[in-house]
């Protein structure tokens, strides 16, 4: 199969993730959409790695996974602390500082 198709899939997943970040209102779902974007990047890295015949892209995919895991730890801690103090994880409710 033509590896370019995987790139189209990666771009599609990335777009779905970015759209989700923009339209969804629950902080957890927004965060999941960011993770989808990171995974789309991983798919692109691996597809390019296959096309170029070098392993850099696959190594980077591992790094991305580790970074994403670290981001989950930090992000969930922040979102959970927000949820516990407000009983809501909606990003629309977080508006104390609007002008």
């Amino acid at each position, binding site marked *: 199969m033509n590896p370019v198709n995987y790139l189209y899939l990666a771009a599609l997943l990335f777009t779905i993730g*970015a759209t989700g970040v923009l339209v969804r209102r629950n902080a957890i779902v*927004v*965060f999941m959409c960011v993770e989808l974007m990171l995974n789309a990047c991983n798919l692109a890295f691996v597809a390019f790695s296959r096309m*170029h015949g070098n392993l850099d892209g696959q190594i980077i995919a591992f790094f991305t996974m580790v970074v994403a895991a670290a981001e989950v730890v930090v992000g969930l801690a*922040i979102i959970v602390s927000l949820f516990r103090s407000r009983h809501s994880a909606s990003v629309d409710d977080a508006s104390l500082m609007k002008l």
Partner: protein
Amino acid sequence: MSATAVHSLWTTAATAADPIARIDAPKIEYGQLSPVLIVIGAAIIGILVEAFVPRRSRYHAQMFVSAVALIAAFAAVVALAARGYGTTKAGITAMGAVAVDGPALFLQGTILLTSLVGLFTFAERRLDPEQHGTRVDSFAAQAAAVPGSESEQKAVKAGFTTTEVFPLLLFAVVGMLVFPAANDLLTLFVALEVFSLPLYLLCALARRKRLMSQEAAVKYFLLGAFASAFTLFGIALLYGYAGSMSYGTIAQVVDGTVQNVTPALANTTGNDALLLVGSALVVMGLLFKVGAVPFHMWTPDVYQGAPTPVTGFMAAATKVAAFGALLRILYVVLPGLRWDWRPVMWGVAIVTMLAGAIVAITQTDIKRLLAYSSIAHAGFILAGVIATTPSGISSVLFYLAAYSFVTIGAFAVVTLVRDAGGEATHLSKWAGLGRRSPLVAAVFAVFLLAFAGIPLTSGFAGKFAVFKAAAEGGAAPLVVIGVISSAIAAFFYIRVIVLMFFSEPRPEGPTVAVPSPLTMTAIAVGVAVTVVLGVAPQYFLDLAGQAGVFVR
């Protein structure tokens, strides 16, 4: 390369006939990387201190470890620069991952000094009244406790303090040290995350106004993660374009001078869409960290909600690191593309300068006002970036050094002006401050004049250098717009000074806390650097001039 040849890269089927070439151990130049290694070592020691040292002595232990590490790392940077690693012996270390050259060492030195001053404001424990017999700093007693709950009161009563902020600060510094020195895209991305993640956490740790602080952290985190996902996709596309993560190789492919184009690359190297979209996405992520206008929405909220010492540190050091990385991307990776990126950066710089200055006029909160002022300053620095000349690099380096000390000093002053609810950040409460405590108001006025770029302050020297470089680089219209928006910005800086000195103090106005020597040192360093760089900038301009050459 055929499919079977590719597969042989990760299967062992071919080993019998065609053994895999010996893998050499990587060669790491520990000496040249020592500033980063010292700080990362201290950060790990800081975590061990958190785990093993009794609670009552943690604060002093953490303070000692962090201060010693930052000073030692700065000494290492100075030693490297003195041995010529910034000029003649500049080179690429750690198997092509990190560049040690003039701009990297200059920015690392700036970041380390700024962080040391930031550390002093983090450690300040005399501003709040004592709670249950313990001195408290600006950070939550227990970050996990729900604000206003019983568990929070228990934690306060027990005298808990969040000493984890010191290792978090050090980890953020590690990322910031590597960020402007990164010489491949993977290192760039990892450094970006290493300094962002601790900052997200630090934003959530305020002792007062905890809901606002948590909200700031969520906004910063979600938008920051969104921006870094875009950066990563840009990195993927650039990798697809050039077949390599290394800055040097990508630059060669962009220029078309690459020696060994493999047939496998022929599919993608001609594909300019990958290059243009990829570099746009990477630059976008960096502009987000810098706080340039289409990507600035997080800045005011995060600056306002975060604990003020964190805001000061973040505003100063993040900007230095992010502009360093932006300079390296634009000057080392994409110089062959400059006819494409210059018009875009022109637009970004113009919108950033004008929007930052104009929106700042309407602000009523001092921290938000400084946030919009930092956006306007990002625009001024971008004008120097656009110059694409050696003097452009050195003027940006000088501006960053001058700006970071002014910023950290200004936010340190903001921590001093307090009322019953903590810091009194609303501008109306600052009315008549000059009558009540002339010294603090005068110091803040010095910082505001430096922001405005009045002669004899570092702000003037920096702005002059940047605008001169931009004009010589053929961006004269940008300089005109820069001067106009400086004038607009001067209006609201002067308005705050007028408010402090020429209006009657309110009877229920805030008091000015008497800080410990820590914050006093931070503010004194800020004033000293502002005045010295303003009165006698030549030595430092020369230093930045010597440092203004990137290694390729």
